[in-house]
């Protein structure tokens, strides 16, 4: 207190524009897995990205650790693929036919066994495809961040984008909910990407949003219009048929 009143004391440093990031004191749970344990750290990371994503990105490291987001993305992708496979198995009528006695049951059983084999082969491929996909996805997002001027004050460079894309893979867990889960996961992923890129690259959320949306818009804008049009037509048809 006395120091604060001392006129000869040097002026306090100006506050940083963003709170400092990093593991000091209270790290992001997944990056503290040596202390918390693998499962607890993963669940803690998922919970934080779900309930307080901005705080999660503020608490995580910005550089020097490509392995953590990669491992997090691989675990999330494997769990997402498991959930997705479970639902597609449950909703496939031929899999239920396998329970019938006789030839039909045998044929359906053989088809279900082949499908199950294919699914387990896919599970083996998931970590490889996640690693490649993460690098390519981060590369494309980084390219568009550059185009929209979102990297001018970035302290973390490509690793920042890689980390955000990697941790945003947590949205694959939305496959736990059938049908609407993937759609909700997509929206959640966009929110995470925008918050994370804005935080780790010290840029605006508008630039981050533009960098996330530009690749989607370039390829899918017409599909979006078609979906809205189809939705409108279906709603109109239901209304006309006396629904609502």
């Amino acid at each position, binding site marked *: 207190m006395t120091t604060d009143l001392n006129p000869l004391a040097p002026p306090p440093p100006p506050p940083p524009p963003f709170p400092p990031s990093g593991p000091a004191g209270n790290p992001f749970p997944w990056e503290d897995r040596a202390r918390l344990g693998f499962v607890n750290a993963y669940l803690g990371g998922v919970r934080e990205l779900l309930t307080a994503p901005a705080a999660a990105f503020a608490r995580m490291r910005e550089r*020097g650790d490509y392995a953590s987001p990669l491992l997090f993305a691989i675990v999330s992708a494997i769990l997402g693929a498991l959930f997705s496979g479970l639902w597609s198995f449950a909703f496939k009528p031929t899999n239920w036919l396998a329970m019938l006695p006789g030839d039909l049951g045998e044929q359906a059983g053989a088809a279900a066994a082949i499908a199950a084999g294919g699914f387990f082969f896919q599970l083996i491929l998931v970590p490889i495809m996640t690693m490649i996909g993460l690098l390519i996805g981060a590369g494309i997002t980084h390219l568009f961040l550059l*185009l929209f001027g979102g990297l001018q004050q970035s302290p973390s460079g490509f690793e920042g984008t890689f980390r955000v894309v990697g941790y945003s893979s947590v949205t694959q867990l939305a496959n736990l909910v059938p049908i609407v889960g993937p759609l909700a996961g997509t929206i959640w992923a966009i929110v995470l990407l925008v918050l994370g890129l804005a935080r780790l690259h010290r840029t605006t959320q508008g630039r981050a949003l533009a960098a996330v949306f530009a690749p989607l818009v370039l390829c899918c804008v017409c599909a979006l219009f078609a979906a809205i049009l189809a939705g409108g037509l279906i709603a109109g048809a239901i209304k006309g048929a006396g629904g609502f």
Partner: protein
Amino acid sequence: MADASVRQLGLLWGGAALLLLALAPFGPWLAAALPPCPFLALTGLPCAACGTTRAALSLAEGRPLAALAVNPLAALGWGAAVAGGLAALLLRLAGRPLPLLPGWPHRWRWPLAAALGANWLYLVARHLTAR
């Protein structure tokens, strides 16, 4: 910390490049699982990324000119991703620093946008003239 980042990126990039080369024989099978381009289906015109998969498959078959014809920017991107990854891995194993990665030079911003635009125009023109 920055050195650790660059070292890890060298390993990761190199590993991904090796995996891409290892997966190349399975390319047609993997590509069959991809959905068709919604932009092309709805507008009749190729999107900016149309031909990326075919360019990768052509490169995997050792036909770089065919890959360049399908989508020049994608072919160059795939080539740079694999060649750069292998170079990064070799440098990492030799204990040498990566010579690149000074951060993205911001003066590349507009040339990059121009390259993307020109590539898209080429794809549209090629598609229209092929009809």
